[in-house]
Structure formats: structure tokens, C-alpha cells
């Protein structure tokens, strides 16, 4: 557009004004802050009871997350038909339809299922994955994200449709070690295994050298001159292949079709319920980045989750189950090998050592 002809002035709204645009369901507005309790009549359906005596049904289903206007419009059609023209999304990319009419619940579920939206993800189920952008849109990915999510959730669909896990399971996946997917009970994260290849020809034209140097957590990047031009070099014996420099400088090429591997981390938790929130711990590495379906990764994930399903007590999150049985038995039950690399060697490593005589035999 010809900017000189623009006669509109931007309004800095912030978030979409939820009051002005009336995005809250009428039953939600009426009972706002006055809900009494809820239960779940079946997986995928929540039933909330208000102090006013009102009852509100919520039907939750999975989405593509990586969606289109066509998909969004079809969800709108169903919201108009069954949920008074309102819908909301959850942080795990599910969509929720609310209605006070119990008779709307079953037909809505049938239509959603017919459209290919599995209904579930409530209670002690495996909900949809929190994932990143990957090859589809990111500028630094070593793998894809939407494809990873699709191929793994295909395998885990029964655990999305039912509530048979000890507690809820939160999965995440990330296409580099920055881990935009976040903390979850189980995370699938790229782990590079070779230092970055420095593209000297372009580096000083594109990158701010001090920024790339400062980005390194182990001070492995040094200034150098190559063919008379300023550039950077990597002390490969120090480099931990984290890829932090690549975010600052795309000429520090860390991604590799073969040597960018997949690692699996477990036991993360954001909730404060019972135990304090916890970080994720590394339990498998060097799995191949094998699109389009990543079968090797899916197999390990499935094995871990089924061992947890079998061994976890009601309400134990994955990390709490491991806390009870111990890491040694975790590795036994999942047939995974405890590797030397799993012993922390970074900052505060000693806080992860067993500083006691507590041993399980």
C-alpha cells in the first residue's frame, strides 16, 4: 500500500477488549466468579455448577492447532449451532464449546467427531501437545513440530479420548534446545551433537560478533580472522552444542540432518499440586530425527508413558511416580539405559547428586 495515502491512525488496544466485543458466553457472564464446583460426566465433557443453580456443559476437543480459516469457520458453525455462538481455546490448543443445554452435548460430540476433532483431553488424560513451529515457519529449527505432534498424538489418541492415566499428562516438543515448547511431564527436544559449522564468508556481514560471543554459555567462541575478514571460531573441545550462538548469528550453522538428534526429558511439572513445580530430566538421547513419523521417538515416548500408566498411583504426576520409585527403577521399567551423560555437569550440578546413603535395591 502507498503509506503516504494512509489516513488511518493505529489504536493501541492491547488485548481484544473482552467486554466491548462481548466474547464471554452469557452463562459465563452471569455466573462470573460465582462457580461452585464441577465434575466430568464423561471424558471430554465438563459440567460446572454455579451458585445460582445454573449448570454449564463444556465439550472439549482437539484441534490441528496449525489451523486454517476453513477449520476456524467450521468450529464457528458448530458454536453457532450448539453453543450460543461462543467458543474458547485452551493453552493446550483444544477448543471448548459451552452450553447450558444438556441435550446439545451428544449431537455436538457426534458432529465434532465426524469432522475429525477427537473429543477428550479432560481430567487424567494425555492432552494435546504444546509445540513449536519447526520447519513450517521457524528460522532456526532442526526438526518439524506440527508433524511431530501429529504423529505422536495418532499413537496416543486413546489416552486423549479416555481418562485412564494416574494424573494428567502434559507433553511438549521443541525444535531446538531453546525449548519454546516449555516444561511438561514429557518433552521431546532437539539435541545437537556436533559444534556449529562457521560460515566465514558471510559472518561479519550478517552478525554482530560480540553478541554471538556473549551468547555462548561456556565461552567457546573466539574472534578470529579468516581470509583477511573478521570472523569467529569455535573451541570444539569446549562447545556443548547447545545452539545458543545460532540464534544470534545464522552463520553459526548448528543444524544438521544427521547430527541434530532427539532427546527425551521427563518429570517436568508447572502445577503446585502436591510437590513443588519441577524441571524435566534427561532420560534418552541420540534418537534419530526421522520424519515424517519419527517412529523411534514415538516408541520410547509410548514405553515411558505406558510404564507410568501401569505403575503410577492415582494423582501422581509422571515425575512424582519417579520420585517414589527412584530413577534406577524408572530406567528398569522403561528399558532405557542410564548413560554417563545423564549426570549433570553444568551449573549447580552437585545439587542433583545423591548426597545421602539413600539407595533402593
Amino acid at each position, binding site marked *: 500500500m502507498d503509506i503516504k495515502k494512509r489516513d488511518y491512525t493505529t489504536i493501541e488496544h492491547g488485548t*481484544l477488549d473482552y467486554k466491548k466485543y462481548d*466474547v464471554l458466553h452469557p452463562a459465563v457472564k452471569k455466573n462470573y466468579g460465582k462457580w461452585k464446583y464441577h465434575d466430568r460426566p464423561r471424558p471430554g465433557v465438563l459440567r460446572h455448577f454455579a451458585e445460582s443453580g445454573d449448570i454449564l456443559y463444556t465439550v472439549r476437543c482437539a484441534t490441528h492447532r496449525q489451523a486454517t*480459516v476453513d477449520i476456524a469457520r467450521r468450529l464457528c458453525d458448530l458454536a453457532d449451532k450448539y453453543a450460543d455462538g461462543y467458543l474458547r481455546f485452551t493453552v493446550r490448543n483444544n477448543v471448548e464449546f459451552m452450553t447450558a443445554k444438556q441435550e446439545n452435548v451428544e449431537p455436538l460430540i457426534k458432529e465434532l467427531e465426524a469432522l475429525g476433532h477427537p473429543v477428550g483431553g479432560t481430567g487424567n488424560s494425555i492432552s494435546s501437545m504444546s509445540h513449536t513451529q519447526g520447519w513450517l515457519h521457524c528460522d532456526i529449527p532442526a526438526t518439524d513440530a506440527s508433524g511431530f505432534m501429529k504423529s505422536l498424538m495418532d499413537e496416543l489418541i486413546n489416552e486423549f479420548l479416555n481418562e485412564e492415566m494416574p494424573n494428567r499428562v502434559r507433553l511438549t516438543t521443541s525444535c531446538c534446545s531453546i525449548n519454546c515448547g516449555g516444561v511438561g511431564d514429557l518433552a521431546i527436544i532437539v539435541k545437537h551433537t556436533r559444534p556449529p559449522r562457521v560460515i566465514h564468508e558471510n559472518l561479519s556481514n550478517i552478525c554482530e560478533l560480540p553478541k554471538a560471543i556473549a551468547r555462548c554459555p561456556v565461552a567457546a567462541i573466539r574472534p578470529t580472522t579468516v581470509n583477511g575478514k573478521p570472523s569467529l571460531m569455535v573451541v570444539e573441545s569446549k562447545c556443548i552444542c547447545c545452539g545458543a550462538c545460532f540464534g*544470534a548469528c545464522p552463520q553459526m550453522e548448528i543444524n544438521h540432518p544427521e547430527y541434530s538428534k532427539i532427546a527425551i526429558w521427563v518429570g517436568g511439572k508447572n502445577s503446585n499440586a502436591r510437590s513443588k513445580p519441577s524441571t524435566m530430566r534427561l532420560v534418552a538421547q541420540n534418537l534419530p530425527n526421522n520424519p515424517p513419523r519419527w517412529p523411534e521417538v514415538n516408541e520410547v515416548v509410548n514405553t515411558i508413558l505406558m510404564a507410568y500408566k501401569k505403575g503410577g498411583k492415582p494423582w501422581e504426576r509422571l515425575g512424582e511416580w519417579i520420585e517414589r520409585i527412584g530413577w534406577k527403577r524408572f530406567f528398569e521399567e522403561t528399558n532405557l539405559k542410564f548413560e554417563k551423560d545423564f549426570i549433570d555437569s553444568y551449573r549447580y550440578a552437585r545439587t542433583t547428586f545423591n548426597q545421602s546413603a539413600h539407595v533402593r535395591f
Partner: protein
Amino acid sequence: MADKNQNNKSKFLNPTPVIDNLEIGPWPSFITGFKELAERTKKPMIRGVMDQLEYSYNTKTGYWKGGLVGVLGYGSGVISRYSMIPDKFPEAAEFHTLRVMPAPGLHYNTKVLRKVCDIWEKYGSGIMVLHGQSGDLLLQGITEENVQECFDELNKEGWDLGGAGAAVRTAASCVGPARCEQACYDNIELHHQVIKHFAGMIHRPELLYKFKFKFSACPNDCVNSIMRADFSIIGTWKDSIQIDHEAVARWIDKNGIDTVVNQVISMCPTRSITLDNKNLNIDNSSCVRCMHCLNVMTEALSPGKERGVTLLLGGKSHLKVGSMFGSLIVPFMKMENDDDIKNFIELSEKIIDWWTDNGFDHERIGETIERVGLKQFLDGVGLEATADMVSHPRDNPFYKAEY
């Protein structure tokens, strides 16, 4: 590409045999979604992006690079993507994204969502992400030429761009009091007002690095604020858990005494619950507000009546010091009216100022506090040190004592 087109004259799209594998199986397939959109709209950009994605799946390599695309007056909110191999995939040469900020709690009516879809189909690819990890609605796939006009039209409908780069970022909220009995404050309203206040810092990056707010209305932290946000605002209560003794008795009759012992009482992290003839006694002075018993017995137990927020600061992911959770900086703050919201915003400004004065480039506030010291941070923003802020007092003598 030419020979492929000849084999598929009836079809708009080129063959994509590898990513077609992602159409198999019961989970919704984004590839099927893209194909449907492309065949209906005949937008070349979608075809180009799918061709490049197919190529990525074959070579196991990404081909997007960033650049500088924006709207007038703003320095963030548009994520620019140029193909690194536009000669190969000219239709995917540009694939920029608009981050727009939905209503807190991701509530929509169909009129609002349809309107976005119509504007987006007019100017962009029609591909959208519901939603991005920071809480934006991502409108993916627009050329630089269309960005300003598309944004203007969205802006007229109440939409604004989210953050990117070294800026305050788009926030996220759980469903909150809109539909949850455990909500301890109105996170939807606080989120709305905070983002409105900081809109300038969202649109014009002026910080050391990103700064994220996330609002969870109870300690279950459904929006994952504690690890995904620099500033985590978590609902809590000060007084006693409300017990409906009749509902407790009904629950025990239905689920059995073993269940209440094994799944509620034994799992209390501070051993604060005892059973007394089918009644639960809770020692509220030992309770840490973890939510477990309330989650199990939703009807019988509810948060107390004196509600507010607990504030944690400094959460972030791995790079580069390792994962950090938010650390408690304010045990309890009232959050009932506009004055409370104003107090919160003032504290937020002080915190951001302290960080700007003391932090390094590309250092998140959690890293700055770790490097400079929590004690120094508290002095800097005028907060009082309390024992709530530590797991235990220091266990080494290496400090300068005040005497």
C-alpha cells in the same frame, strides 16, 4: 515443478508424497487442512509453503530466514519469514506472520472469529495458529506489501499486534473466574489492564530481552506461568479452605474411606489434613495452598474467602543458565479492585526499571536476579524480605553481615 504440474493437471497443488504421510491417522491433520484451503482459495503462497515443507522433510533442513517487516509506529509484532531458496520455491518467497492478541483466556464469539478469518483470507494465506505459545493468535503467511493494510483493517476491529524481540510480550491467562470455581482473582481483567498499560513496551522493543506476564487464577497454574513467564501472577487465598462437611460425607460414602486416606490425606504435602469421623480437619496454618485436596474433592472443598495473588519472578527456559522457575517475591497481594490493579502495575514498572538498570543485554530478569542477588533486587524495588521467599535460609557463611 513444471513436470509435476503436468502429472496433476486437475489439481492446484504439487505432489507432496512425504508430508502426505501426516494425513494418516485419527488426530486432526494440518496437512489435510492446508490442502483443503489451498484447493479452495488457489493461493500460490500455500502451494509454495507446502512444497518447501516437503523439501524440508526430505532434506531435514529448515529454509526460513528472518528480516525486517513491520507496521507504522511499531517495532514488533510482525515475524518476517523469507525463503532462503526462493529460486526453488518462488511462491514461498515471503511468509510473514502477524501476532495478534486475543481476549484473555482465549474467549471468542463466532462473530469476532469469523471477522478475523475474513480479513485474513482477504490479505493473507488463510493459515492461522490457534494459538502460539505466548498466547497470540498467529496469522501466518502474508507478503510485506499487504501487511499494513491487513493490520489497519484488523485494528479497526479491535485487534492489536503482540510482542516480539526485546519487548514486553503478549500475556496468557487460564479460563479464570469465567468458568472455574477455583479462580482466586479476576485474571482476565488484570491481564487486560496490564497489557493495555504496557502496550507501548509491547509494540516498541526497548528492553534488554523479552518480558512475559502470565496470569493463573490458582496454584494449579493451568497457564504454566511459573516456568513460562518472567512475571507469574498466581491466585491464592489467606484464610481457611472452605469445607462443605455434608459434601465430604457424601464423597466418602461414594468413594470409600480408603480413597480419602490414600488419595487425599496421604498426598497432602504438609500433612495438614486429618480425618475425624468422616470429617476432614485441615490445619490451615500449615497448608501451602498446593490445591491437591481441592482438585480431588471439587464439591466438598473450595479456596478460602480472603483471596488474592502470589507473585513469582524470573521464570524462563534453558538458555543459557538452565531452566529457572519463578521465585516468590510477594507472598500475598490483594487483587479485588482497580486500586489493587494499579498497585500491581506500579510494582511491575519498578521491577522492569530495576532490571533495565542492572541487567545485561540479552539477560532475562531471572538471570539478572541470580547474578546480582535477590537481596539486592528486593532493596532495589522496595520489597520486604520474608521467609516465604526461600526454601531454607542460607547454608554458607560467605556474605557481608549488616550490623
